[in-house]
C-alpha cells in the first residue's frame, strides 16, 4: 500500500484559444502559477478544468504536457473518469506510463448501472494500474448516483492500491463510516476533501484537499488548508467563511464564472467550451464587481506573478 499523500491538490482549469483549442502557452503559465502559489500536487484534469469537454487524445496530451512541464517538482494525479469502463481503463494505463503519481476516478457518466457494475467499473480501472487509486465521490454532479458504505468498504478490501476517497458529497455520516472503518485495517487510507469545505471534512479525518478555486484565490486556499492541517478547526472558521463566500458567488453565476473570475484576476484563459456558455458582458461586469468587493481578494495575486514578486 502506497503512503503517497496528495496534500493540498490544485485542480487547474484548461485554457482555450479563440478557436476552442487548448492554449498550451497559457496552460504552461497556469501550471507554473499553481506551483508557485502553494500546490503540493496537481490533479489533471478535474471537472472545473472541463475534463468532460476534452477528447480522449486531448486528455492524454494534457497528461504528457503537464508531466513534462512539472518535471518531477510535485506529484501529478491523473483524473481518468469516463462513461465506458474500457475507455477509463485505457486512460489510466496511459497516465501511468506517462509518469502520473496516482489515478482519480468517479462513477461512470450518464449510465445508471447497478451497484455491482459500478464496483466493477472502479475495480477494472484500479486493477489496470499499479499506482495509488483514489475514488472520487461527487453524487450531486453525477446524477445522484450513490455509493453505499458497504460497497466502498468492499472495494477497499479487494483493491490493494485503493488509497483514498475524495469526497464531494459533503455527507458527514458517509465520510465517517468509510474512514473510521477502513482505518482499522488500513491506517494509511486517506480521506480527501473534494472541494474547499475543509473544516468539517478535516475535523472528521480528511488530510488532503482538492481545490479548483486555487486558480482564483490560492492564498486563501492555502491558509484554510494550512490551519486545518494543524487541527485548529475553530481558528479556520474565518478562512472557511471567506472560502464559502467565494464559492457561493461563483455558484450564483454558473460554471462559466470560474473563467470569468480568472479574467477579473488578470489571468485570461479564454471561455469555456460548449455546451457551457460564457457569461454575458453584463454578467461578467457584475461578477467582477462582486468579486472585488470581497475584502480578502485584496490578498490574492493579480496577473500571473505572485504578489511578492511584483
Amino acid at each position, binding site marked *: 500500500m502506497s503512503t503517497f499523500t496528495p496534500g493540498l491538490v490544485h485542480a487547474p482549469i484548461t485554457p482555450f484559444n479563440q478557436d476552442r483549442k487548448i492554449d498550451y502557452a497559457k496552460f504552461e503559465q497556469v501550471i507554473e502559477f499553481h506551483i508557485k502559489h502553494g500546490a503540493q500536487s496537481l490533479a489533471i484534469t478535474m471537472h472545473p478544468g472541463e475534463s468532460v469537454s476534452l477528447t480522449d487524445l486531448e486528455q492524454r496530451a494534457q497528461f504528457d504536457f503537464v508531466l513534462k512541464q512539472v518535471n518531477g517538482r510535485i506529484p501529478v494525479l491523473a483524473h481518468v473518469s469516463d462513461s465506458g469502463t474500457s475507455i477509463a481503463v485505457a486512460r489510466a494505463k496511459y497516465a501511468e506510463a506517462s509518469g502520473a503519481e496516482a489515478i482519480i476516478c468517479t462513477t461512470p457518466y450518464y449510465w445508471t448501472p447497478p451497484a455491482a457494475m459500478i464496483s466493477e467499473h472502479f475495480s477494472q480501472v484500479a486493477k489496470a494500474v499499479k499506482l495509488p487509486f483514489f475514488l472520487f465521490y461527487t453524487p450531486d454532479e453525477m446524477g445522484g448516483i450513490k455509493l453505499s458504505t458497504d460497497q466502498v468498504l468492499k472495494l477497499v478490501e479487494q483493491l490493494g492500491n485503493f488509497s483514498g476517497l475524495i469526497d464531494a458529497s*459533503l455527507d458527514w455520516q458517509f465520510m465517517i463510516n468509510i474512514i*473510521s472503518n477502513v482505518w482499522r485495517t488500513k491506517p494509511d487510507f486517506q480521506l480527501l476533501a473534494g472541494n474547499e*469545505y475543509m473544516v468539517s471534512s478535516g*475535523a472528521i479525518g480528511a488530510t488532503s484537499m482538492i481545490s479548483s478555486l486555487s486558480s482564483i484565490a490560492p492564498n486563501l486556499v492555502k491558509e484554510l488548508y494550512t490551519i486545518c492541517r494543524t487541527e485548529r478547526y*475553530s481558528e479556520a*472558521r474565518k478562512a472557511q467563511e471567506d472560502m464559502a463566500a467565494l464559492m457561493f458567488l461563483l455558484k450564483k453565476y454558473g460554471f462559466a464564472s470560474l473563467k470569468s473570475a480568472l479574467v477579473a484576476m488578470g489571468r485570461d484563459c479564454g471561455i469555456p467550451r460548449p455546451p457551457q456558455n460564457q457569461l454575458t458582458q453584463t454578467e461578467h461586469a457584475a461578477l467582477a464587481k462582486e468579486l472585488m468587493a470581497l475584502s480578502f481578494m485584496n490578498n490574492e495575486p493579480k496577473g500571473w506573478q505572485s504578489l511578492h514578486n511584483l
Partner: protein
Amino acid sequence: MPLILKGVMQSPVTPLKDDFSPDLPTFEKLLDFHVRTGATAISWPHHKGESLNLTIPERKAFAEVAVKTVAGRVPVSVHVSALSVEDSIELAQHAQKIGADAIIAITPYFWSPSQDAIYEYYVRLSKSMDLPIIAYNSPSYLEGIEFTGELITRLLENVPSLVAMKEASFDSAKFLEISRAALKVRPDFSIVAGVEFLAPSVPLGCVGSYSSAGGICPNLCSQLFDACTRGDSVKARELQFKLAQLWDLFRDQYPSSLKGGMVIMGRPVGPTRPPLPTATKERQAFIAKKLEELGILDTEPHGW
C-alpha cells in the same frame, strides 16, 4: 426563563405502555434522567418522540408533564410540527399557555411548500403566540424542502421571535449558507446541529446539538461537546466516530432501535407505535452486543 441554546440538548423519546397508550409516569422519570445527566435543554416531541404518531390531545398532555417536571431547571421547547398547520398553531398557543420556553417547527410536511409558503408559515406561527421560535431545516427527510440563505434573511428581517435553527442537513455548504445569511442579520442567532454531529459543525459556529443517543449515552454526548469546544480535535474525532456508529445503529426505523437500546440500559420506555416497528428481542440482542462492543455498557449510567 431566558432561552440559551448551548451544548447537548435532549429530545426525549415518548414512553408508551405495552398497549401503546401514553406512559406519563415513565416520561417524568426520563425527563429527570436527562436533566440529571447534563441536558442543557429539553425539547419534545421531535420525530424521535414519535410526534406524528401522537394525537394532538396526547401531545398537549405530554408537553404539560414536560414543563411541570423540568420545572425551570433547563429551558423546555415544544415541537409543534403537525401534518395540519392548524394543529401546529394550536400546539404553539398551548405551549405558551403551559409555560414552555420556546417552540420548534419544521417546514410544513407533504405539500412541498414554496419558499414563500414557508415564509408565510413562520410569520403566521410567530403572530399566533409570543414564544421564541426555533426553525428546523431537514431537507433529507422532506424531499429537498429546505431553507435557503435568502429565506432565512427575509425571515430574520421580519420575524423578531425567530431566534434559532435546528440545521439537520448535515452538509457544510448548507450550514455555511444559512449561518452566513443569518448571522449577518442577527449576530446572536443560534444554529443547532441535528443528531450529535458536533465535530464538523462546532468549528463553524454551531452552538450545540439536539441529541439522538442521549437516552443511551449522555456521558459520551457531553464529552464530545466538551472536546469540540476546547478544540481537542483528536479526541473529538474519536468520540464522533463512536457516535456515528451509534447513529447507524439507531437511525434505522428511528426511534424503534433507540427504544430497544433503552431496554438494555435499564430504562425501558415501551414499544414504538405503528407504522414504525417495535424492536424485537433479536434486535435488542443485536443492539446489546453493539453497545457492549462500543464500551457503552461500562461507561454510561444503567437504570434511572
